[in-house]
């Protein structure tokens, strides 16, 4: 009889999905992997409490987003330098469209970028985006509207976001 390992199963099932979501948010695959690993490490360090969660994947996503924000704040004062000295973001796809999209996403305000990334790129429904970001569904909708307009200005009017994203 094998002992059940819910966290191991969750790790196997959701790690890559969470990384893709965080990649949509950050535009850096390396950064995305780090923050998701950090979320799992925190879950493992508090395994007892983690086991009591109703939606552990939502908790991991929330932690990963918070880690991303925290790291971003620390880097903010060095942002200019980071672009020059550090390596450029590790992108998952070198196609011109993908690079252009991720570059444009990085230029959006953080709130709009997060909403667009989680809803349109990571395909999360509005209520889960709201939960992950700690805002209301109305705020998410507002950010999506403004973010679409801003992204359209950056990518050109042909940028089409409407064919994806769940309600």
């Amino acid at each position, binding site marked *: 009889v094998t002992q059940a390992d819910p966290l*191991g199963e969750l790790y196997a099932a959701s790690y890559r999905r969470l*990384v893709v979501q965080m990649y949509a948010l950050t535009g850096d695959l390396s950064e995305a992997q780090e923050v998701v690993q*950090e979320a799992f*490490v925190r879950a493992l360090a508090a395994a007892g409490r983690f086991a009591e969660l109703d939606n552990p994947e939502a908790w991991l996503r929330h932690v990963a987003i918070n880690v991303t924000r925290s790291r971003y704040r*620390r880097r903010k004062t060095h942002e200019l330098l*980071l672009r*020059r000295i550090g*390596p450029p973001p590790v992108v998952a796809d070198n196609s011109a469209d993908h690079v252009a*999209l991720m570059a444009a996403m990085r230029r959006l305000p953080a709130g709009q970028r997060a909403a667009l990334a989680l809803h349109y790129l990571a395909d999360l429904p509005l209520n889960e985006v709201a939960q992950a970001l700690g805002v209301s569904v109305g705020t998410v909708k507002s950010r999506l509207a403004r973010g679409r307009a801003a992204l359209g200005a950056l990518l050109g009017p042909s940028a089409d976001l409407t064919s994806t994203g769940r309600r």
Partner: protein
Amino acid sequence: MMPVPDAFRADDIADSVYQPPLTVLRERARRRTRKIRVVRSGVGAGLIALVALSTPTLVRAGLGPTARVETLDTILGGTGSPAVTVFDSENVVVTSSSRQGCGFSFRPSTDGGRTWPRGSAVFEPADDCSTMDPSDYGVDVLTPSLWMVLVEGQRSVTSDAGRTWHRVTDQVSTVDELPLGAVVHCGYSTVRIAPLCGGGGRTADPLRIIAVDLAGHLVQLRNAPPRLRTMWWVTETPDGALWTIGDLTQPVEPPYQLAVAWSTDRGRSWRTWELPPATTAAVVPRDGREAYVVTAHAGHVRVDRTVDSGRRWARHDNGELDSIVRDTGAAWYAFLAADGRLVVVGPDPGAAPRFPPPRLFAWHGLGSAPGFGAPAELPGPRGDTAIAAGGGLLWYMPTEDAVRVTTDGRSWRQITLPEG
């Protein structure tokens, strides 16, 4: 026409994601739990242990291989994972955020990490850090015993390996040349990037070089390198020469307009040499006469070398190093081996784990066919990350809680990090 969904194929991206074994994350969690427990009860023990610390030999940065590893969990990422600074074959300092205690703990070894003192030297500024701004928080391990910390905008320095600390006032003495033994302070290990040494990235900031003297006092050079608007890093060589690279223009957009600047009289006067446009660049000096400059742009790496204090530069760009930067976007590193050869390593597997293991290229001289020899792969299992600065390469191995160090590009030694 650019349908955004086509530009973001989640399934393809998921295929390129590196997923470490869960055991690796379990080990990180286990170490973190252990560290939290130690720190929670360890402040008193740390203070007691300070009395028993032996005095490390003071080694000025630049005299020996000075290298750092800052782990993927930066020391200020709230995780308590260590940063490692290796000064030479004897002196190693492991720095951790004290985490629950708002400050830092230091573990200096004077035998190359074979043994560690019991307990830590602790800088603990407050009992309650719940209202502190974590972004205003950093540490700079300047020498084996000269450390500077920043908490809430207040700098404190120890020059005796943590036995005593004193607050640094805002008064900075202006000097024409750096005093003997003073160490340039470029920034704090607040984030996993090379800190900006001067200029602050903003045109309003004065460009200046700050150093900490042997007594722990701050001094500021009167003359900054001319023409530079920023400095990325300042490297000191054993003979007291100073070398740096910085921007010639602001605001900056890639490729950057850069110049290398150097002083052979400890900062009294400077010379500059404009570099080709580059997206990344590094200067690797041996002394006031000899230095390499490595620049990369558009997937191509170029090396320039001087042996006469910058009067003439020999250019080398036959493409041997291009694979390091081509298509990966990952970090790469350059350092000077103990025998004076330039060693270039990349790409960093921690930054891009799906790429091949990092390779090491060593310069084989300036004879009739100067260039780099056949690349060698780094030995051992792939680590999370590898970051090197000024004289050596360190390779962090999270599964073994150890770093491997090379100062010649050929041989390696392993430093097992201290318990707790």
